[in-house]
């Protein structure tokens, strides 16, 4: 296989990380909503934690992007 082709395929494979990030973000917001609907009074207090969880889950997907960019531009 051409090294250039392998790089492109590898960069494409790295985007699979987005699947995990999608599951994570969906899980966080879904859990927050179901919890907030059960106990709306407690929902406001957990909003910072929601944002924190969102940022942490989103970052894992971006690690995949970093791998893809390293493959495309650095190696």
């Amino acid at each position, binding site marked *: 296989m051409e090294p250039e082709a392998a790089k492109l395929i590898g960069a494409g494979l790295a985007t699979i990380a987005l699947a995990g990030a999608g599951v994570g973000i969906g899980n966080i917001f879904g859990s927050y909503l179901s919890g907030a609907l059960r106990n709306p009074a407690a929902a406001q207090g957990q909003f*910072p934690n929601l*944002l*924190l969880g*969102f*940022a*942490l889950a*989103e*970052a894992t997907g*971006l*690690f995949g*992007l*970093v791998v893809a*960019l390293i493959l*495309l*531009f650095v190696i």
Partner: protein
Amino acid sequence: MAADQIKLALLQAHAAEDASHVPESMGHSVFDPMHQFEITRLVDIHLFGVDMSFTNSALFMVIAITIVATFTIFSVGGRAIIPGRMQSITELSYEFVAKMVRDNVGSDGQRYFPFVFSLFMFVLACNLLGMIPYSFTVTSHIAITFALAAIVFLGVTVIGFIRHGIGFLKFFVPSGIPVALVPLLVVIEVISYLTRPISLSVRLFANMMAGHTMLKVFAGFVVAMGAIGGWLPLAFIVAFTGLEVLIAFLQAYVFAILTCIYLNDALHMHH
């Protein structure tokens, strides 16, 4: 400079002019979305064989620090008991970070409040400055974010050893596990501790870089689709810019809160 040409080209989509600037690997795109991250030397300074040039990155760091410092100093200059709008912003941000430190580190973490506050305001100012079109996003470079994360990591580790002496190493041995599992878990704990600066820096840098690249890519769609089809990506850009401002704030918040959590680990060591 080539930077200005690219910016013009972005606006007017001069395909011919672009062709000379677009790197091979970018292939068919009208312009290069990575060009906005290019560091250019504004003032050439070479001291003792080290390149210490004043770059656009350094310029935007200076701007960020100047804005934060002058704003916080002058807005509370009046010391009004009933704060005005400007004083309110400073007091709100102070109280926001103070609450973060109080909730996550505890009362003996208050002495580290100035550090967390400076860190938060610096990252926030850099992130928000980057949202201004044609400006430079300082935090979209791993060199900057890793330097910040390394300061946090080394500082927290030193604080842990000063506070607990050699007993800080017990941090890597989770309590209440079978003896047979200790060697394995110690290795895992040490690795997870050592990856902290990497995840802390890559999180901030990747978020900033990905967001700005995506905005630029969609800006390219607007140019490519023209006056008729370009409204859809334009609407997306407007919505996404709002999300990006949120993320700019959120990443500064996450950076500061993780610093607090690491500080808490070093100070209290409960596992």
